[in-house]
């Protein structure tokens, strides 16, 4: 008995500690060791914010991939076979290659076969049409989604935006979920993030030093005209802001880029015998021409590759790079190379995204909802407890104690697990109050029946609790099943309802059975009472 009491009290105190923490601002919680760090997250409908489900236009990505492959085939035909294709184009999601004579189609097929990702769909006299193989289609779609995620992540987490606790993640097979809480960006600004393209630049390095001070020291009369200093920084965690990372090198470059990502069509990592992990990239024809010129004229110099004004690498130019293809090496790990490839692609391929679903709530409405939610919870508690005490008297007081304990445990458990509280979630919480007391009604009605049959209070209490147990479990398990179904299929705020309902059901089984039972053992306990206040 004593140990059970200690256990219950300890559990409630622990949950209470977490519950109380929800009422303090985050800074206060972090500053003191007296409060736990974990509290409930507030859903966007309560703290305000933007919830978007986007779908990247994958057809554009697929057409783009075909375009790149077409460029490759053209290069093979022109450089190796020395034949000119009449026309290479992407039409209706197909790569169309038209040659001057039917005899040349064999060379086209051979070149296409070498890509290993093209499948012929049909052919006419002088033309042959290809699509991507199913496997490669999947691969491209996959890559495109990752790419959109990467670009959007970098954009939303950009230091100039100063957005905190944003969520950018994949939803299902081909959707992107973005959540930006609490009025940090208004709808306008946020929409801008979807429009704006990544900013990739290639700049020749005029000078370099390990730090900005050392570099500036070389130019006592000020930097040369039209130049600026850019930094290469240590690779950091994805969520870390660039300024917080250590500077590895400072470069002096021209303000205007020698080449931009506008001309880049593709980038991907691969393993090279000599250099280890490298990143291959490809330009379109105009980019290829400029790149060949730039690299040919500046052998022995470093070329800084900047994305959104940060230097990602500054490889040494060893030779003229023709054909619009090149690679970057620099003791990359496989991860580094893959990351760099993602970033290069991200800058180079802005797939249009469409908003499929939006749920944006202004901070004022969110604050209003919280206030209303708290008021409704208090009223709900008062009504339910008031009725229970009026109806069951002392036993009603016990049930009310259990009810309050349930509320504390519910909020406590949700805080520990950092669950998200939404407005429907608050509704679920209030509803749980009404449902949790069901268990006590079942028990008390049973006890009353036993008393009416003439059993002693002690025996009636024992029978009441024992016989009611399974009935209570049945009742709560069915509700729990439904809550889990709702969690599985619900979205956004509705999911919050499923969360608070399921947690509330589990905690209520504990509180509404264990706590009144202990209280009954405390009073009347073994006392020879004539009538039970129930």
């Amino acid at each position, binding site marked *: 008995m004593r140990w059970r009491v200690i256990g219950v009290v300890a559990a409630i105190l622990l949950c209470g500690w977490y519950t109380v923490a929800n009422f303090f601002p985050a800074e206060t919680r972090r500053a003191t060791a007296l409060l736990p760090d974990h509290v409930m997250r507030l859903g966007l409908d309560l703290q305000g914010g933007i919830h978007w489900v986007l779908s990247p236009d994958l057809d554009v990505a697929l057409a783009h991939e075909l375009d790149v492959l077409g460029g490759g085939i053209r290069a093979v035909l022109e450089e190796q076979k020395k034949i000119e294709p009449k026309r290479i184009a992407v039409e209706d999601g197909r790569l169309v290659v038209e040659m001057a004579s039917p005899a040349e189609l064999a060379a086209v097929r051979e070149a296409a076969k070498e890509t290993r990702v093209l499948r012929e769909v049909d052919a006419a006299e002088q033309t042959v049409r290809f699509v991507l193989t199913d496997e490669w289609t999947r691969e491209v779609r996959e890559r495109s989604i990752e790419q959109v995620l990467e670009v959007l992540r970098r954009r939303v987490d950009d230091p100039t935006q100063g957005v905190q606790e944003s969520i950018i993640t994949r939803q299902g097979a081909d959707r992107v979920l973005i959540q930006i809480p609490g009025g940090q960006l208004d709808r*306008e600004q946020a929409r801008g993030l979807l429009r704006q393209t990544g900013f990739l630049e290639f700049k020749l390095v005029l000078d370099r030093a390990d730090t900005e001070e050392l570099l500036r020291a070389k130019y006592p009369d000020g930097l040369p005209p039209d130049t600026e200093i850019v930094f290469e920084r240590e690779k950091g965690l994805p969520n870390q802001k660039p300024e917080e990372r250590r500077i590895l090198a400072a470069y002096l470059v021209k303000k205007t880029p020698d080449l931009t990502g506008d001309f880049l069509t593709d980038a991907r990592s691969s393993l090279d015998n000599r250099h280890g992990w490298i990143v291959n990239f490809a330009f379109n024809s105009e980019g290829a021409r400029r790149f060949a010129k730039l690299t040919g004229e500046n052998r022995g110099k470093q070329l800084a590759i900047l994305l959104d004004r940060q230097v990602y690498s500054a490889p040494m130019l060893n030779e003229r790079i023709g054909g619009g293809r090149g690679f970057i090496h620099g003791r990359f790990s496989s991860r580094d190379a893959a990351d760099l490839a993602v970033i290069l692609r991200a800058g180079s391929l802005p797939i249009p995204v469409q908003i499929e679903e939006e749920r944006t709530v202004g901070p004022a409405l969110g604050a209003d909802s919280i206030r209303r939610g708290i008021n409704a919870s208090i009223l709900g508690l008062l009504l339910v407890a008031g009725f229970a005490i009026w109806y069951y008297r002392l036993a009603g007081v016990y049930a009310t104690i259990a009810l309050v304990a349930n509320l504390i445990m519910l909020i406590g458990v949700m805080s520990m697990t950092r669950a998200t509280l939404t407005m429907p979630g608050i*509704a679920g919480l209030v509803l749980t109050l009404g449902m949790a007391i069901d268990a006590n009604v079942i028990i008390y009605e049973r006890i009353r029946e036993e008393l009416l049959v003439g059993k002693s209070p002690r025996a009636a209490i024992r029978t009441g609790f024992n016989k009611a147990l399974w009935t209570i479990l049945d009742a709560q398990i069915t509700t729990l099943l*439904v809550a889990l179904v709702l969690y599985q299929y619900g979205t956004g705020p509705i999911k919050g309802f499923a969360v608070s309902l399921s947690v509330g059901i589990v905690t209520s089984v504990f509180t509404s059975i264990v706590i009144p039972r202990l209280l009954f053992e405390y009073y009347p306990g073994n006392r020879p009472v004539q009538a039970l206040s129930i």
Partner: protein
Amino acid sequence: MFRTIVPSDTKIDFLRYARPATAVSILIILAGLASALIQGVRWGIDFAGGTEMQVRFEAGTNFEEGAVRSAVEAAGVEEPTVVRFGEPGSGEFQIRFAGGGEGEEKQGQLVDRIRSVLTEQVGPVEIDRVEYVGPKVGEELRRDGAKAMLLAWLLILAYVGLRFNLQFAPGGVVALIHDVLVTAAIWQLLGQTFDLQVLAALLAIVGYSINDTIVIFDRIRELVATHTTVDIHELTNRAVNQTLSRTILTSLLTLLAVIALLALAGPVVFPFTASMGIGVVVGVYSTVYIASPVMLAMERWRGRRSAKRQQATRKHPKAAARA
């Protein structure tokens, strides 16, 4: 000696009213169905797709529903629904219209245009909420909603079948389907909109209203075990009466929580709380009038069948007595 709202010794012959009660339920469901077919179902944007905005005018603005509607129309929206939202005089309106989002650009611009036209024609306005659901997502949500409902029914059927025997399960599930259909029919007849919140409420009702039914079935089982001589019709009536006060009390307490939500939680969760409230009341009714009669009907049907079988074989007189 106890405070009661339902006398503990009621002896109401509930089963006598089973037929008229069933008729009333079927009538409500048919009326709802007719309304759905004739007037059409008002699907919320969650399921139909479209845009929903909640706007708030500054206090002191002369806001008229008609003025807001014509301003929204002036912004280029066809057939918008504009309704006053929240407390009277709060200056809050809900604007809902179909479509509004082919292409990210268009949707964003539309909301901005509505804002500027409203400011121009009605007064300074704050956009509190914008919800847009595209046609693809709407379709998915519809499909998921139907799946969720079916899965919930199946799980409950499985659970009740597992815990009790299968003769009880159909009664419980008929009651569940009844609760969802009647609640939905009433919601439809009230001219309300079906959205995700209403679906969540209907699901919660599925999980909740089976509780009362389980209690009665539990009691019937207990009585059947101890009173072998009394016929099951009488025992069922007795079980419903004995658990009546519990059935009404638990629902009343849940209803109190719903009332607190209706009173204070505000218009944002109104669809959920209101439909939940209806569902709780319907749940009590179905527990008393629908679940037990169906169970009894099943029982009689089985009884007749086993009696027939017995006449044919004349081998197990004991089994016949039990049935």
